[in-house]
């Protein structure tokens, strides 16, 4: 039986993970776009991203895109796997 993941289950982090899962493998989303999409403040988003990064679920990369500094976020392989496990556990509860 698969277990719910408490790190992912927190509402804001659940939305962050779901948004990143929607991207194709290896694709990255800009920090400010993610914040706007989820209606989270920079501070709040930053804190949740740090938790997810420490768990090894996401990768945060700072680089220049079109000559502008960007913070780009992507899901790691482990993150995608853990998220899928979490969704499976949720579906199991529904029966």
């Amino acid at each position, binding site marked *: 039986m698969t277990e719910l993941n408490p790190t992912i*289950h927190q509402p804001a982090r659940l939305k962050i993970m779901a948004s990143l899962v*929607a991207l194709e493998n290896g694709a*990255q*989303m800009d920090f400010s776009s993610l914040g706007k999409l989820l209606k989270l403040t920079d501070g709040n988003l930053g804190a949740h991203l740090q938790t997810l990064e420490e768990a090894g679920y996401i990768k945060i990369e700072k680089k220049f895109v079109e000559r502008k500094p960007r913070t780009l976020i992507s899901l790691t392989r482990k993150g995608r796997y853990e998220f899928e496990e979490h969704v499976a556990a949720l579906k199991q509860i*529904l029966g």
Partner: protein
Amino acid sequence: MNISKQEAQESLTEIESAIARTRRAMGLHGGHILMIWGIVWAIGFATTQFCPRDAGWVWLALDIFGFGGTWICAVKSRARFHRPGPNRVGLAWLVLFGYFVLWNFLLQPVNEREGIAFSVTVFMCAYVIMGLWLSRVLLWLGLAVTALTLAGFYFLPAWFPLWTAITGGGALFFSGLYIHKSWK
């Protein structure tokens, strides 16, 4: 960690809506591109109808505007969503455009009306195919404009360029506006 069935259902609903929101945000620039080409078609085909002598250079200027605008939208989208490897949708459009030029050369539509119908239906075919993969808006847009183009081709031959400006240009512009408003 234990949660109720209702909480599990709410979480799954939240996941689905977050995924859908992201996909729509990724496609938002597509709406802007539709609006740009809607303007190009509306002005271009109206010029073909009313000022056929100026149509050549007007179309050239409009195409530069269209391709330039499309490029800017693509660059903006790439800054928000950085994808690995080449932009396959962009490449697919480039391939289609290449084949469109080749077919035009090989088939050589004999008059202006056939040329317009050929151009519009080739690109609407691409919208229908894209719609099957990406969004129903594009699918219905492609089918509706194809049907309207055929209706104008057979029943309004003298006003066909204007008909295409209104139906084709209008459909592209307003479906782009719909995507811009509802996918934000």
